[in-house]
């Protein structure tokens, strides 16, 4: 041990431009900036930017699969447009039904990426470093929630844009077509915002309870699948048994009720898959309540978690 050992002192011998330690005199930003930094970093992490290639595989493949069908429809739009105009064919996918039909891919997206967002910091015990900085626990949880919501919103909006482009190009006059298409497409923004928030809050609230990524993922998948299947089964049994309350259970499903809420935004009638006793507004209320509930669960988790 020697204080004069240059290697030990962290200076390579022969370095001629060691300025020594300099203090930082610049600006120190507060909570909001810290939360924003975490949000940006987290969003990059979800899509695998700044991480190895293998980290990009899952989000891009899953989001790609979700958008794939809209792109196919776009590719063939010129071929089928004539028959649509003639009324002999209709679009398979519309802004309103896209999520209801393909939402399963986004469950996979959540299962793959939500544990990435909240389990890493618990597993590698990074949380104390955050909580001893300019950030509060609430800021941490909300920044993480915002980042997954944004990532989901992006994944949800890509096929919407593809459908929009396809519909606009189908018309002879693109500008005129845009004028008629835009009002039809716009409800996709609030509808998908709610969808993104709802799925993100459920995913993070549940994932944050385990530091192990695998357990989180399995738990999350189990939740989504069981909560879809069990109320639907009870409802169909209840229809025959004459249980009048069974239809309300459908409101607890994560994906079906989001489909119902989406219909509310587009103002289209519910299909026969939904119980006829409930209106689209009931699903909207259920989804908003679910966002509030799971956000509260997430905040509660981070208030209590030991660091």
């Amino acid at each position, binding site marked *: *041990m*020697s*204080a004069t*050992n240059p*290697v*030990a*002192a*962290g200076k*390579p011998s022969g370095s001629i431009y060691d300025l*020594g*330690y*300099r*203090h*930082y005199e*610049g*600006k*120190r*930003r*507060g*909570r909001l*900036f*810290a939360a924003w*930094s*975490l949000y940006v*970093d987290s969003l990059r992490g979800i899509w695998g930017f*700044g*991480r*190895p290639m293998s*980290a990009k595989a899952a989000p891009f493949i899953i989001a790609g699969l979700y958008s794939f069908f809209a792109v196919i429809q776009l590719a063939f739009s010129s071929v089928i447009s004539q028959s649509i105009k003639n009324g002999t064919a209709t679009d398979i996918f519309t802004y309103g039904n896209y999520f209801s039909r393909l939402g399963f891919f986004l469950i996979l997206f959540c299962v793959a990426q939500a544990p990435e967002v909240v389990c*890493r*910091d618990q597993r*590698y*015990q*990074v949380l*104390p*470093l*955050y*909580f*001893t*900085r*300019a*950030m*509060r626990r609430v800021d941490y949880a909300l920044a993480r929630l915002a980042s997954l919501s944004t990532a989901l919103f992006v994944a949800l909006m890509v096929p919407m844009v593809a459908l929009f482009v396809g519909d606009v190009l189908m018309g002879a006059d693109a500008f005129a077509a845009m004028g008629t298409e835009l009002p039809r497409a716009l409800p996709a923004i609030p509808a998908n915002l709610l969808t993104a928030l709802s799925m993100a809050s459920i995913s993070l609230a549940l994932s944050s309870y385990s530091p192990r990524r695998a357990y989180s993922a399995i738990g999350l998948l189990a939740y989504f699948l069981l909560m879809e299947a069990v109320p639907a089964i009870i409802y169909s049994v209840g229809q025959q048994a004459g249980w009048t309350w069974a239809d309300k259970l459908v409101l607890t499903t994560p994906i079906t009720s989001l489909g119902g809420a989406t219909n509310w935004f587009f103002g289209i009638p519910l299909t026969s898959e939904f119980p006829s006793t409930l209106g689209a507004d009931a699903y909207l209320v259920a989804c908003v309540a679910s966002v509030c509930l799971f956000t509260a669960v997430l905040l509660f988790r981070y208030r209590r978690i*030991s*660091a």
Partner: protein
Amino acid sequence: MALIETASLTKDYGAVKALDRLDLQVESGIIGLVGANGAGKSTLIKILLGLIPPTAGRASVLGLDVVEQAPEIRKFVGYMPEHDCLPPDVSATEFVTHMARISGLPRSAARERTAEVLRHVGLYEERYRQIGGYSTGMKQRVKLAQALAHDPKLLLLDEPTNGLDPTGRDEMLDLIKRTGTDFGISVVVASHLLGEIEQVCTFLLAIDAGHLLKAAPISTFTQRTPVVAVEVEEGADRLTAALISRGFKATQEEQCVLLALEDEALYDAVRDTVADLGLPLVRVQQERRRLEDIFREAPPVAGGVQ
């Protein structure tokens, strides 16, 4: 303004009292916080950071109350935890830059500071590699770098030499010493190894079972006479008696004879006595004073224990 001040600080974990009415007043410098495992070192550090609330009593850091002004304190405090705290799949540069930004530094400043502190802790080309592939020594450096990234006024280091080999340990201690002296940042180093603390600290706090045992400048500890241990395979009792009769202060501890090293003549006397008695000598060694010795000898300071 005192760097750290506590008044009757108490922390209860159910049945266990981690801190028991602790009164402290510490000025700037490199402060060693010694205590056996479970003495309450980490608990004290976590309370000072506002990570856990005290059960009773008050504490302040840089004149700011740890409960009411925790966010303000955190702007000027760097913390290096005892445990691993680094994600394996990012590079040291990315991680430290991220942490500097979370501390409130704008992007360009964060990058600049990161390059600078990583150079200071002695990470060069390897800083672009993923942390998962680092050695323990390099990880400890990254942990220190992230604590320094926002240029804190006070660094709280919890067992910074944990898991390091002797060379790595000396390098880490040297870094800590430079941080305290050259960088002008106050440092609190928690450790259960008194030897380490002695090398770098200017002030020493010894706690045991949540009580303050001793708080004093390090010089008051080093003034005490060192001890030489003479180990023999047999006849330790005869050796002790012979050395006492020669006028040395000797005590027997199993196969060892402990002697107060008052002058160098002691070594000659030991050699001659062992040779005269024909005893099988195992070792003659100047003992590193162990933590327990301080704990055994040091009377509790006034006001430390109620």
